[in-house]
């Protein structure tokens, strides 16, 4: 059976490429291309072929995206190639880096400059990926269940939100009335790391003396405390402007980027002026990419350092770790502070990107969503955290919305499907509104069928297999 996979993949990929060549605007050929990406990535084929095919597919998808920038299916295909070269074992480093850089810095910008939604999606994925990576340090690597993680994101966002807007002048006399100029964001990204890390230690000091479920409920409670403070500190001193939130938050200058774009002739290529809106989308896309790259690097280095090993030791067996001379509280606090720092820096960027901060973004729901990214991706696995964030974000703001639009068109045109006239479908059934339903279903099904996550950490995979075997042998009920 398995010897047919390679020829089949080859044939299928060739056919879908041919289809794309003949009918570039057809949705079906796009789907076929996405299917080829999946086949090439997951099937059993030689590594050299895999690299080559991925590169060709990436090229084809990029061309399709350039022809039709609103073609989301092609974009998802590109994301798939990106994930594949980020995660697949055995690919050579050169291929990985070359393909990754080409997609992130050439393919996406080419399409994104005429359809800023792609940048928006990229930015969201980047922000959520950083949050997932941060929580992954705490829950996945150190095994400390934190249900109030959005608090650190909030601290980062408010750190810049308060000082980079007219808000600070409300309670500090002589502060510039419009707040600090946008370029101070870079300084405040560093400050946000510090404030978030300090908050992490402050929350961790009482919470980390507790274990397991108690830790979960206390972090949850303290996370809510941070949100309630943000929601109500508009009196006696107006620090956070309460539930209305803070707006406008200043953004750094992006004029240089716009000039560069005009210089390389983007206006002629796209046949329209490069305005500040699209420049800012591109700007934040690049900024988020840069930060996520740094976060990834720090995370990988940390995971393999003395601290990373100490975290895993604590997760696996606290008492044994203590007996081996690992100081429990400081090591746990370091995990909390590291995770907090990752999300704090993204918080500052989030505030600037939205030009708006309000307590609404940092609810318990947000904390649980971040936890779900980590679990979906695979606890403790760095690649998993990124994939989990990407998958859920694409699903939430991409696929579900598309599906809603599709249903709406069906409803309006009155298509009949399986004998049911879609025009009779109640207008309340709008899938984009029910993301929790889909999300909940995914969580349940994942936990039942693949609890180790999409990209499991090796140690976890081994544990889960062991447990499964034991259950099959009937040793443990």
């Amino acid at each position: 059976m398995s010897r047919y996979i390679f020829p089949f993949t080859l044939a299928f990929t060739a056919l879908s490429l041919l289809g794309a060549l003949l009918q570039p605007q057809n949705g079906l050929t796009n789907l076929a291309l996405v299917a080829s990406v999946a086949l090439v990535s997951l099937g059993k084929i030689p590594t050299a072929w895999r690299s080559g095919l991925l590169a060709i597919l990436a090229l084809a998808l990029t061309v399709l995206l350039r022809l039709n920038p609103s073609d989301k299916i092609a974009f998802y295909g590109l994301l798939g190639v990106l994930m594949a070269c980020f995660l697949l074992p055995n690919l050579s480093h050169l291929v990985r880096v070359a393909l990754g850089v080409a997609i992130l810095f050439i393919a996406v910008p080419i399409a994104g400059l005429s359809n800023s939604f792609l940048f928006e999606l990229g930015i969201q994925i980047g922000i959520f990926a950083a949050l997932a990576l941060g929580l992954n340090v705490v829950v996945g690597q150190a095994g400390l269940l934190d249900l109030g993680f959005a608090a650190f994101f909030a601290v980062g966002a408010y750190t810049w939100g308060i000082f980079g807007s007219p808000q600070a002048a409300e309670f500090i006399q002589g502060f510039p009335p419009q707040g600090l100029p946008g370029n101070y964001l870079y300084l405040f990204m560093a400050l946000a790391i510090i404030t978030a890390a300090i908050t992490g230690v402050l929350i961790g000091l009482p919470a980390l003396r507790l274990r397991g479920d108690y830790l979960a409920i206390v972090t949850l409670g303290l996370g809510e405390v941070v949100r309630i403070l943000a929601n109500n500190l508009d009196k006696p001193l107006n620090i956070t402007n309460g539930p209305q939130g803070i707006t406008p938050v200043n953004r750094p200058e992006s004029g240089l980027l716009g000039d560069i774009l005009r210089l390389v002739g983007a206006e002629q290529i796209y046949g329209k002026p490069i305005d500040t809106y699209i420049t800012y989308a591109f700007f934040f896309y690049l900024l988020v990419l840069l930060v996520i790259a740094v976060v990834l690097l720090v995370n990988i280095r940390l995971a393999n350092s003395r601290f990373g090993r100490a975290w895993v030791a604590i997760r696996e067996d606290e008492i044994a770790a203590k007996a081996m001379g690992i100081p429990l509280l400081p090591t746990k606090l370091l995990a909390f502070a590291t995770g907090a720092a990752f999300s704090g820096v993204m918080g500052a960027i989030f505030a600037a990107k939205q030009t708006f901060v309000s307590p609404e973004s940092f609810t318990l729901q947000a904390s649980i969503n971040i936890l779900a990214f980590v679990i979906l991706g695979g606890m403790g696995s760095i690649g998993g955290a990124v994939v989990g964030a990407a998958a859920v974000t694409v699903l939430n703001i991409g696929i579900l919305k598309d599906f809603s639009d599709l249903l709406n068109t069906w409803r309006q045109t009155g298509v009949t499907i399986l004998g049911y006239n879609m025009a009779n479908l109640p207008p309340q059934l709008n899938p984009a509104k029910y993301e929790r339903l889909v999300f909940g279903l995914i969580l349940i099904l994942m936990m039942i069928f693949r609890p180790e996550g999409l990209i499991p950490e090796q140690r976890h995979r081994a544990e889960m297999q062991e447990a499964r075997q034991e259950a099959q042998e009937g040793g443990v009920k």
Partner: protein
Amino acid sequence: MTVADLLAILPQTILEGLLLGFVYAMVALGYTMVYGVLGLINFAHSEVFMIGAVIGLEVFRFWGNPEAPVIPNPFLLLLVALVFAAVGSGTMAVLVERFAYRPLRKRGSKNILVPMITAIGVSFLLQDLTRIYAALRHNEFNMQYRTYDALNTTLLLPFETTIQVKGILIIVVSLLMLFALTYLVNRTKLGKAIRAVSQDMQTASLMGINPDVIISRTFLVGGSLGGVAGVLFGLLYTNVTPYSGVLPGLKAFTSAVLGGIGNIPGATVGGLILGQLETLSGTYLPFLTNGNFGTEYKDVFAFLTLVLLLLFRPQGIFGQNVSEKV
């Protein structure tokens, strides 16, 4: 406000805290019982509670229409609503256990996060299913309980306190349910089996107890209590949304932890304490801080108390300190 004024409203505040506390206590029991047998924070319990409130609301809407009431007596109507909510929520809890948690148990995963994430997933699923139901049936997000004069009549009590008839009903129903539960757990065979399973599932199964059946029954009992609490909560606050289980659920879980999770009297006491903390801080914080920190901070107060208590007594008020074995 003078000290005398503050003291004058104290009895009324305590009474209101008591009503809230009883609702929390009943929900907390659901959390604590499931935690006792499975060691799982059943996040879906807040939705079981919310569904109870929705079922109660539907009973009032169906049979209590003021123009053509099927059941004209509001007290009887409330009784019917309570029974339906208890059965409905109990069934829902059993279904959740059967289809979401049991498959995990059968697979024997030792990771405690797996069932908890499943619980969160179930909670999301139930919230949005209820939302779809509310959208299709009522075409709205907020659902209002019907109000009845007979239930809202205000009675005068000593110390210048007042209570509505529904307030008395809440206390009576809660006390009855709490006594019934205590009887069930301490005096019946099922209760004995539940206690056995929560102490040691494996040994209990050697003594001829089928853990699956007992776990299922535990969910039934906890879910029914949650459903009853849901109706009482709806009666008290009159407004129900698909997400209105989340916050009370969180508070109830906090109560359970406060009292010592897994401990049945602890959950009741924890709920009553939390109810008092919440209303007392809600009433008095604005006066004590000159209006700088108002009622909004009552939740902060509740959570900080929990943190403080856990620092000094990590096992909760009634919990037993389990020493870690290596």
